[in-house]
């Protein structure tokens, strides 16, 4: 596949030097531009390692990582990230937290001071889009966990990254908030067409959101199965109750069970 936007080719990664922990081995994955990819797998399978490799926060021991046609040799500058922990900076208001990437990424960095008003407007529009209209002036610790996670998504997207990396961003939320946020990210993806790699252990989340779901094996992690999800978009939460949906979830569960070595 040559049209891949993110491609990891036979990647091996070890933590902690010689005799360290082999996190992933012979990991090959290719994600197309604009695609919503989900990676599922048993815990400790190296899903987060995959995220770090694809963003250039870690470099592979063997194999190659190519993002946007360029070999990754330093942190890629076009990625937005969100984690299970929203990690907002408590001394900044929510709005200022969302604006943080603009203080770092060019060309916004040099423009921010001059065009502050335009950027603030943009950030407020984004906040409104995720249901946080009017909360920009609050401090993150004045918001609920779900609201913080929404703000964290805004921060990941404010600089219009071509690649959005989500590392179990909804794992710490209650079921209702989680489903609400599925819809938020679904709509954002539909509107902006960025590439998403979502790492999760929630199979329903993966199937509901993704175009393709990749299953990883237990450590050392590699891709053991790949499943296209062809359900039409936009998807409504109701599809999660359809027969097709549960069939796919069941199929993936089978792969995970094999991956964990439990039969």
């Amino acid at each position, binding site marked *: 596949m040559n049209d891949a936007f993110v491609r990891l080719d036979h990647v091996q990664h070890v933590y902690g030097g010689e005799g360290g922990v082999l996190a992933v081995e012979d990991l090959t994955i290719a994600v197309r531009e604009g695609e919503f990819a989900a990676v599922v797998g048993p815990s400790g399978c190296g899903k987060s390692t995959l995220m*770090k490799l694809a963003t250039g926060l870690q470099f592979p021991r063997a194999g190659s990582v190519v993002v946007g046609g360029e070999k990754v040799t330093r*942190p890629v500058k076009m990625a937005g*990230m969100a984690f299970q922990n929203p990690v907002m*900076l*408590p*001394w900044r208001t929510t709005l200022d937290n969302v604006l943080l*990437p603009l*203080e*770092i990424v060019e060309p916004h960095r040099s423009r921010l001071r001059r065009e502050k008003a335009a950027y603030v407007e943009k950030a407020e529009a984004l906040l409104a889009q995720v249901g946080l209209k009017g909360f920009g002036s609050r*401090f993150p610790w004045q918001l609920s966990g779900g609201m913080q996670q929404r703000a964290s998504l805004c921060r990941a997207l404010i600089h219009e990254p071509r690649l959005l990396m989500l590392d179990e961003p909804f794992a710490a939320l209650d079921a209702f908030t989680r489903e609400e946020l599925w819809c938020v990210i679904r709509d954002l993806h539909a509107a902006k067409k960025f590439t998403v790699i979502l790492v999760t252990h929630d199979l329903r989340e993966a199937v509901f959101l993704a175009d393709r779901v990749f299953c990883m094996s237990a450590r050392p992690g590699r891709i053991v199965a790949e499943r296209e999800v062809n359900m039409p978009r936009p998807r409504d939460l109701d599809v999660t109750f359809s027969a097709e949906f549960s069939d796919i979830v069941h199929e993936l569960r089978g792969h995970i069970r094999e991956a964990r070595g439990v039969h």
Partner: protein
Amino acid sequence: MTQKQKIALAPWVFTIGFFLLWEVGCRVFHVSSFVLPTPLAVAKAMWEYRTQLSFHSFHTLWMTLAGFAIAVVFGLGMGLLLGSSRIVHAGTYPLLVGFNAIPKVAVVPILVIWFGVGWMPAVLTAFLISFFPIVVNVATGLATIEPETEDVLKALGASKLDIMTKVGLPRSMPYFFGSLKVAITLAYVGSVIAEYNASKYGIGNLMARASADFNVPLLFASLIALAVLGVAMYAVTAWIEGRMTGWAQRSGFAAN
């Protein structure tokens, strides 16, 4: 009277009660003013020596603040260095701990040999005794940045300096201001010790001379002056801390 009013009143009642007890105790047991003067005698001495006391208090305040200021600048710089480089941290930490373990009274004679009797030993002792907590706190603040925060910024292409100014510095501010309360008290101890041993001015020196004259009421008056000055300096740093890092004191646990 409500519980709240009682709590508001308690410090006054207890403080006044303490001095009353002291006064009455001295009178009932006929304690010689040579051993323990009554609070009234101390107050009289404070009035009698008011010009000397205020002059020397002012001097001590100056020495303390000068030493403290150097400690703040040095401690902040050193803390940032230690917190941002693991090699510097590993390399200098044993030295710092070793240095901090030396009682600073023992350093005063060396300072006198180097700089003679005067303001230098007082300022330097105040500095030497008070920079350590600042260094440790700032370094801790930097070292405990959440790895996810670092990842978010690195994935945007942030440099080490970016991460330091956007996250490291603001994040270590509560630790820094918290350490100032400790440092100002220590600096105060340092300057008084040095004045006692090697100065012509300051409350420490006044006490040294009062002690040689067996002027016990003046000794106690000096102690009271020291207490007032110390509380004032502590209160100012605590107030600054609250003003600068309100975001860090959001839990009800700390507020109540």
